[in-house]
């Protein structure tokens, strides 16, 4: 394949995940767009084999999409360890290749966390600023949902597809929640409840996370394909090493290719869309005399304020069948407790699982028995589990950051990312609160509690946010309200790295809405340039 630079490119997008894919797709009709991605272009036909890897015990999560090795090395110097290569995929489609596909809007107060909850900064935009882009994002990704969430932010338009009906286990939870005065509602899925956009209806493979063999779950190859059809050039296996720049703008992206060559891609505009870890890393790797602390880092905020959502969960067993693991997504949630957030407690949302307890086929491959003994073990182990998860917001903290490792380099000799992750007490307190609610619901059901993920056991939900935060003040933020860096006039960032605070809903719908909005601003900026 030809991996040489595109001459006279207008837009160079770094990263072929959902943000980069959407920006490229929006601009490719009118501009010469080139997309560079560090990872490969995966063959759709290989997905059944990847699914087999997902089921077989020999393979770990990073193996499914070929993460790991010198390209992807990392360190974790913080108080909390971070399994970075479980949390991301490099390649065309990015981490949407392995995501679960849950897509909710942030709440109104999430944009004003500082003033309404006393935590973190306010965003420089409000829900109303992003509101026109949310339905567009839902249409682009293909979202199945229903307007039945009384606690969600306002919306006028219906979802593009009807919601997935509730599960049998949802009906069990519903009885308990009704007794306790807890409202359940449907949950928006970026997964086809009917055929949509040339992709099939979900066929129930049950391995959504980490691979959807049918393509019913949205992934960013959809928009990369669309961008290419409009004339964009997509170069895979082309990790950008650094960004050549002057004081006011980026001149070129210098990228490596598998043949050992290094190329220089020039463009009018650069869009960094390589996630909350690699985006700040690339800026830090591009330090210069003008920007000794890293490109676009006059504020010192590049890499700082690294946030993730924290998981809290409780599960148990019932005296009765619960019908788990038929599908790999959940169909009911509760955001009733979300906006009780204040300085003491973070926002949280509850997730009623359809996949708690063991999957029989995975159990079968891991025992020391077979034949009738194995079948007996499977029958004893499967069938009566129930679980409730929750996501909890983490407060932005300067001491939680993505940096460059001092003593480890990647396959091109660049310092690997160091994830220095710390978690605040408000988040840990809220995990306890989530556990209490979960325990209350399961106890009402008469379940025997068998597992709990609390403050001691919690881990990340793999949502990387905050590391190039958005703000109005160039001294404490990296990008402005449009996504353009304060320091460099032709550098935009499309990523959850621009989130000043994280809320407690999965970030990708907001990533998509922001990407569409940023694409509009880039379009305007390029229009102004061409008419000068």
């Amino acid at each position, binding site marked *: 394949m030809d991996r040489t630079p595109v001459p006279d490119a207008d837009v160079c997008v770094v990263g072929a995940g959902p943000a980069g894919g959407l920006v490229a797709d929006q601009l490719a009709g009118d501009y010469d767009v080139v997309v560079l991605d560090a990872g490969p272009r995966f063959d759709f036909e290989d997905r059944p084999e990847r*699914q*087999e890897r997902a089921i*077989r015990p020999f393979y770990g999560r990073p193996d499914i999409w070929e993460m790991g090795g010198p390209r992807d090395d990392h360190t974790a110097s913080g108080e909390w360890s971070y399994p970075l290569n479980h949390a991301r995929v490099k390649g065309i489609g990015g981490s949407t290749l392995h995501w679960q596909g849950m897509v909710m809007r942030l709440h109104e107060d999430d944009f004003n966390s500082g003033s309404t909850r006393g935590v973190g900064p306010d965003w420089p935009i409000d829900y109303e600023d992003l509101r026109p882009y949310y339905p567009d994002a839902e249409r682009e990704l293909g979202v199945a949902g229903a307007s039945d969430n009384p606690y969600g932010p306002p919306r006028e338009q219906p979802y593009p597809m009807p919601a997935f009906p*509730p599960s049998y286990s949802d009906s069990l939870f519903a009885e308990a929640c009704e007794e306790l005065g807890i409202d359940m509602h449907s949950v928006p899925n970026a997964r086809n409840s009917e055929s949509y956009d040339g992709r099939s209806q979900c066929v129930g493979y049950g391995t959504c996370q980490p691979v959807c063999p049918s393509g019913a779950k949205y992934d960013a190859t959809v928009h990369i394909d669309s961008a290419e059809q409009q004339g964009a050039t997509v170069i895979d296996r082309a990790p950008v090493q650094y960004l050549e720049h002057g004081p006011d703008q980026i001149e070129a992206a210098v990228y490596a290719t598998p043949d050992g060559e290094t190329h220089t891609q020039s463009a009018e505009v650069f869009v960094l869309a390589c996630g909350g870890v690699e985006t700040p890393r690339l800026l830090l790797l591009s330090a210069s005399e003008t920007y000794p602390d890293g490109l676009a880092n006059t504020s010192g905020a590049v890499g700082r304020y690294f946030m993730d959502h924290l998981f809290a969960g409780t599960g148990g067993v019932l005296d009765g069948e619960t019908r788990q693991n038929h599908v790999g997504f959940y169909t009911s949630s509760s955001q009733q407790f979300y906006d009780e957030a204040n300085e003491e407690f973070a926002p949280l949302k509850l997730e009623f699982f359809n996949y708690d307890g063991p999957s*029989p086929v995975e159990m079968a491959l891991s025992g020391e028995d*077979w*034949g009738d003994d194995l079948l007996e073990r499977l029958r004893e182990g*499967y*069938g009566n589990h129930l679980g409730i998860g929750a996501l909890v917001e983490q407060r932005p903290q300067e001491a939680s950051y993505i940096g460059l490792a001092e003593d480890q380099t990647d396959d091109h000799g660049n310092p690997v990312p160091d994830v220095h992750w710390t978690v605040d007490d408000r988040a840990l307190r809220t995990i306890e609160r989530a556990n209490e609610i979960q325990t209350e619901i399961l106890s009402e059901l008469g379940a025997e509690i068998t597992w709990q993920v609390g403050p001691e056991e919690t881990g990340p939900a793999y949502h990387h946010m905050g590391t190039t935060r958005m703000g109005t003040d160039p001294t404490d933020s990296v990008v402005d309200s449009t996504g353009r860096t304060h320091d460099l006039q032709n550098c935009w960032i499309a990523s959850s790295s621009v989130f000043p605070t994280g809320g407690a809903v999965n970030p990708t719908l907001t990533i998509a809405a922001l990407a569409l909005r940023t694409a509009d601003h880039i379009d305007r900026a390029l229009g102004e340039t061409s008419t000068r």
Partner: protein
Amino acid sequence: MELTRRDAVAALAALGGAGSATYGYSRLRDDGPDSTPPSDDHVRETMSATAEIVYPSELSGIAAFVEEFVDARLAEDDDHAAGIREAVTILDEHSQTWYDQSFADLSADTRETALEGLGADVADEDPDGSTAERVRYYVVNELLLALYSSPTGGTLVGIENPQGHPGGIQSYQRGPNGLE
């Protein structure tokens, strides 16, 4: 409960014709058996003989199911197919050493003893591992994966749409008595 060729087709639809060897992991070891790879007929026979041990006794129709599944996996003629053939040869060499017969010719009790003697019951699967780990990966777990990702295998356990099977989006809504 009867297994059918249709179940095998369902398992193959989920898993693909071949295993996960098309992009990397299963580089065959240099210290594998030196002998000529076994014929497809012999592989099929050996896999069926193993299935009689590792599948539950209440199943019938095992031979047709295994034949359909194994034929498709071998037809890919890739690293995974070679791994299956190599693991069958390992099984045969082990049974020739201990029982002077090929594995498929042993009685059912002796086949189970032979698998246990090899360590395939307690080994973790590993396509590049020890002989026991390779037999576990390419023979024992290959068969268990085929069975328990199929609707008939899942139904034995109480899940008619097991992980890996594209069984639609109705079953998750149904209760234990078929009620939505």
